[in-house]
């Protein structure tokens, strides 16, 4: 009986199974296979070409003693911290402003969101020009009479990452605003009425009632911002190319440079594995909260 049923089950949905071959291949070969391959080869001494000479954690030792990598990590931490705080803050404040039943809401939203349609390359080049010390803001303010005005983030190694942050925030806050606005629209009108009757000031209503109610949206926004932070690459390439010197390097650029410019595959694999670990540290607790929580009720 069982033997007779098996072929029938195999034939069941055969078209769907054939149609799903690209998905299955991508999932198994690229996502699982590719990731496992990179992690495995991060323990080898691969240079120009991948080779199976395992050297334990030697690549990671080198990685964490490389000043370029340490600067990359520091930059990512600074960029990530401020990017997260300001994206949430600006995104929420803008959404709250747009949610005041104002006129021209669509116009304002269109203006605040358009940078998000632009690539990081375009964003980076535009801000490279505005922040150019000889022509941009510094030059303009100086020519207005403030001779000692200094504002050249892209040429000052100490603050270059903030110059990149300015461009990154300009590009990305519109998206967070849209998310937050959708969240605010989901809040019941009655909550506002009740708060008004109780005489609670507006800012208090936002902080103590509305924001806690938007927990889900905030978590989504944080995950979104965080995954964008890890990926930051094009923006740096366009705006500073990692300079001055190596002052604005980021991990994604370290990986690319090791793999494709300095023929040091092992370092690239180790660095990308570290990026994977970082993402896992962020995403796993989120997935647990989001999906583990739902199942429990």
């Amino acid at each position, binding site marked *: 009986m069982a033997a007779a049923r098996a072929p029938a089950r195999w034939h069941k949905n055969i*078209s769907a199974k054939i149609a799903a071959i690209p998905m299955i291949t991508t999932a198994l070969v690229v996502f699982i296979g590719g990731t496992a391959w990179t992690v495995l080869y991060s323990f080898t001494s691969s240079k120009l070409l991948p080779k199976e000479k395992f050297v334990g954690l030697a690549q990671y030792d080198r990685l964490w003693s490389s000043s370029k990598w340490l600067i990359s990590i520091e930059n990512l931490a600074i960029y990530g911290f401020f990017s997260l705080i300001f994206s949430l803050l600006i995104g929420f404040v803008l959404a709250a402003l747009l949610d005041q039943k104002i006129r021209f809401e669509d116009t304002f939203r269109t203006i605040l969101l358009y940078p998000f349609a632009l690539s990081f390359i375009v964003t980076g080049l535009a801000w490279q020009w505005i922040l150019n010390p000889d022509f941009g803001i510094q030059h303009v303010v100086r020519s207005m009479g403030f001779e000692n005005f200094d504002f050249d983030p892209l040429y000052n190694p100490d603050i270059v990452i903030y110059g990149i942050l300015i461009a990154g925030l300009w590009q990305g806050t519109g998206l967070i605003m849209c998310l937050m606005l959708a969240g605010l629209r989901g809040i019941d009108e009655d909550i506002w009425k009740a708060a008004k009757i109780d005489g609670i000031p507006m800012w208090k209503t936002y902080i103590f009632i509305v924001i806690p109610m938007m927990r889900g949206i905030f978590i989504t926004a944080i995950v979104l911002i965080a995954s964008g932070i890890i990926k930051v690459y094009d923006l740096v390439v366009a705006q500073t190319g990692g300079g001055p010197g190596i002052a604005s390097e980021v991990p994604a650029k370290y990986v690319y440079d090791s793999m494709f410019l300095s023929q040091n595959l092992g370092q690239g*694999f180790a660095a990308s594995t570290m990026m994977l670990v970082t993402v896992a540290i962020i995403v796993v607790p989120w997935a647990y909260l989001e999906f583990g929580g739902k199942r429990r009720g």
Partner: protein
Amino acid sequence: MDNVNQNASAVSTEMVGPRGQKPTKVFSRRNIMIYGTLIVISLYYLLPLYVMVVTSLKGMPEIRLGNIFSPPVEITFQPWVKAWAEACTGLNCDGLSRGFFNSVRILVPSVILSIIIASINGYALANWRFKGAETFFTILIVGAFIPYQVMIYPIVILLREVGLYGSLTGLVIVHTIFGMPILTLLFRNYFASIPQELFKAARVDGAGFWGIYFRIMIPMSLPIFVVAMILQVTGIWNDFLFGVIYTKPDLYPMTVQLNNIVNSTQGVKEYNVNMAATILTGLVPLLVYFISGKLFVRGIAAGAVKG
């Protein structure tokens, strides 16, 4: 409606005086604050676009003397012509037009292929669940969070094995792979919201997997196809990383070529040409954005709620 009824009844029963909310003054302090803040912030967001346009219309002498915020005294379109047709990257001096046509040649097949595959995936997942389907889907969604850097090199090897490394076809496959998680999710959720009765009725009438897909699912879900298209067109056009890794200099997409033109260390910097080139590269996604309006927002909202 309720308000209207209440007002109507109030008017008919007792005419004591004005009722309801006091009409708000246009120039109340609250309004000035809200609109003032929004206008200032909007100006800040528009500033880079304005500076780019203004710079691209000036001649180099005027840029050297003047102020990046001031409008051009003498408008010239020469920088645009140069950016499009003459700017140099390496040995090629045929301008950004090369990158533009490369990007088009990458964009069109990538968008079509990724949407076809992802919509079929979504359809199979929503209506033809087979054993293990959910597992593969979960892997796909988790995969969306894996940094690209982890998968870059294995894909280089795979493409090299099949002889597609450095070709446009290879890049099209890469875009299809990395677009798959989010698009599959998009289509799966949409198809799942189409009433099951329709699907069952078609089954009873003898329609198979492909029959239902072409005759029922596609005609019923045109909006989601448009959303997917917006998502893919902007995403693929704006890509830099995959373009620089999986193609070679002759085939570089527009973003990569733009970066090479502007950040080249040779020659005198021509800022007006650079800005014209930058706007030209941003033009396609900007057009998509301004034409699609609300659908764009819907696309990114769909992209935002991964999982």
